[in-house]
């Protein structure tokens, strides 16, 4: 049995029973990476020695029965916008190509405390800006289900690594769908928690009012286990919520009979790939069979979400990325004076999509335009949030497709940025409202590409989302299928 193909909860069982060791598990993962990453390109940085070291320490703790975390000894990959002390962190950008952080992100600290083994850093769209991992300054990651297709983005590397068993689980970040959409493209489970549920300290910021850290896993139980370790107040993050953290794993097995599931009509419109619509509707039907009550609802301001997102997120990003100026860290271009150094460093250090968004955001905040763009967008954002608030009066969860199509081909959408933005339509509103949502596999298209179904919950109600997702998953077999990684 290939140990790398285990889920976290299965591997954890075997580790605790001392049937396998963390070193064996970690070795298996690195072997898998060696065998497949030449074709998938999920990883930017690997540190095998450090990982084995962590594995050895985990084994010692397991032997001494010191520590009960389900993550003890488990190899986990991190998207390369999580700061890892002493381990290169690039944000997928040339401007940080050699940057070695002096500190760990808070969520990384939590993983280390739990005894997880950090495998390495995965590829992403530069500064998390993109939906395909094609905007990485280094190389695009390939979808393990079809190497000519994108894995989704921006957490494309993490999604691909999980799908290809190059780790047992991974962390990603989600600002406009960057965990959920690649999870759908790669047939894995991707959870974006409520804004404020998980600390953002040490995550390279893109849009401060939307960024969230979340797990990308092989099944829903693993997602619950990881969320348990990540969730909770962090004094280093003023926007992290001071709310009690429930037992997510225990919540998986509650009943779902009578749960009211809303299906918004705005999410089933023309332009959707027919197989996607069918698979999601079948998924909803399955929930109904299990006792859920299905309701038609409306989220009337959905059509404005992309415009709102691309004003607010780019405005925040334009400010967050000002610190990448070559003065204290990162790439610095040689130039004759300060202003030129700024301008050339940032022109050479940032890729096209990042520059485009910085320009858009700067424009939206600039004198004379603030009211027309930023201020207006934040108000429409309030309307979008209100839509969900009203919908949740009559339902407990909302189910939609995660993306309008399955993974497209590399290079297919890079010509028209606006087209790329519009494909985020199903995930973006959730970030705007700060709600939690999970994407899990619900079928495949005729080409064998995975289809994702999105379950959205009320603020801080990850437990219900995970419970329903778990029930659905256990009643179906989608999560058991694995890609055959070969050239086609």
């Amino acid at each position, binding site marked *: 049995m290939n140990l790398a193909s285990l889920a976290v909860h299965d591997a954890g069982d075997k580790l605790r029973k001392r049937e396998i060791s963390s070193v064996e598990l970690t070795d298996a993962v690195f072997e898998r990476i060696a065998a497949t990453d030449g074709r998938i390109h999920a990883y930017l940085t690997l540190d095998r020695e450090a990982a084995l070291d962590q594995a050895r320490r985990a084994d010692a703790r397991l032997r001494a029965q010191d520590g009960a975390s389900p993550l003890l000894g488990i190899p986990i990959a991190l998207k390369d916008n999580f700061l890892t002390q002493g381990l290169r962190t690039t944000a997928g950008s040339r401007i940080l190509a050699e940057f070695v952080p002096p500190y760990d992100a808070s969520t990384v600290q939590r993983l280390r405390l739990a005894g997880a083994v950090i495998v390495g850093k995965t590829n992403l769209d530069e500064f998390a800006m993109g939906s395909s991992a094609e905007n990485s300054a280094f190389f695009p990651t390939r979808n393990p289900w079809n190497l000519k297709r994108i894995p989704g983005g921006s957490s494309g590397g993490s999604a691909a690594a999980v799908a290809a068993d190059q780790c047992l689980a991974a962390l990603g970040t989600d600002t406009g769908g960057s965990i959920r959409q690649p999870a759908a493209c790669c047939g894995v489970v991707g959870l974006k928690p409520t804004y404020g549920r998980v600390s953002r300290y040490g995550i390279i910021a893109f849009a401060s009012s939307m960024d969230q850290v979340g797990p990308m896993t092989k099944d829903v139980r693993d997602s619950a286990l990881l969320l348990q370790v990540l969730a909770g107040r962090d004094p280093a993050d003023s926007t992290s919520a001071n709310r009690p953290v429930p037992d997510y794993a225990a919540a998986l097995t509650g009943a779902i009979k009578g749960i009211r599931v809303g299906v918004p009509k705005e999410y089933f419109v023309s332009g959707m790939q027919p197989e996607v619509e069918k698979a999601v509707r079948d998924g909803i039907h399955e929930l109904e069979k299990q006792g859920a009550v299905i309701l038609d609802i409306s989220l009337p301001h959905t059509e404005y979400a992309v*415009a709102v997102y691309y004003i607010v997120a780019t405005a925040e990003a334009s400010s967050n990325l000002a610190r990448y100026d070559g003065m204290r860290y990162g790439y610095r271009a040689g130039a004759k004076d300060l202003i030129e150094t700024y301008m050339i460093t940032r022109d050479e250090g940032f890729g096209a999509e990042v520059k485009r968004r910085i320009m858009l955001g700067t424009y939206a905040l600039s004198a004379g335009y603030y009211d027309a763009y930023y201020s207006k967008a934040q108000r429409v954002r309030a309307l979008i949030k209100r839509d969900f608030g009203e919908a949740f009066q009559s339902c407990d969860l909302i189910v939609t497709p995660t993306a309008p199509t399955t993974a497209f081909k590399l290079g297919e959408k890079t010509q028209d940025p606006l087209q790329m933005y519009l494909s985020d339509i199903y995930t973006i509103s959730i970030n705007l409202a700060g709600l939690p949502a999970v994407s899990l596999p619900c079928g495949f298209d005729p080409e064998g590409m995975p289809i994702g179904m999105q379950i959205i919950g009320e603020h801080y109600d990850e437990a219900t989302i995970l419970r329903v997702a778990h029930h659905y998953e256990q009643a179906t077999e989608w999560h058991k299928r694995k890609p055959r990684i070969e050239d086609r």
Partner: protein
Amino acid sequence: MKLTAEEVQRVAVLARLRLTREERTELTEQLDHILTYMDKLGELDISEVAPFTHAIESNELREDKVTNQPNTEALLANVPDRDGNFFKVPKIIE
């Protein structure tokens, strides 16, 4: 046309981005296209709507205590150019 090349240049200077001529042309077109799309928001009446806020109650502020362990070397480890314990940066040439 919502956006002129001059405006794009103004914004580029604000954002400290040198743009090549090709970049400027391409960006002007792309941004214009995107901004035109943003006009959609004008369809809505938002005169009575307050701006969005998150569902997070106010948190405790930080106590006034020194908690940092100084580590100048760690701070300077990634600097492109240094002079002793200073970050060394180019000057503005008047």
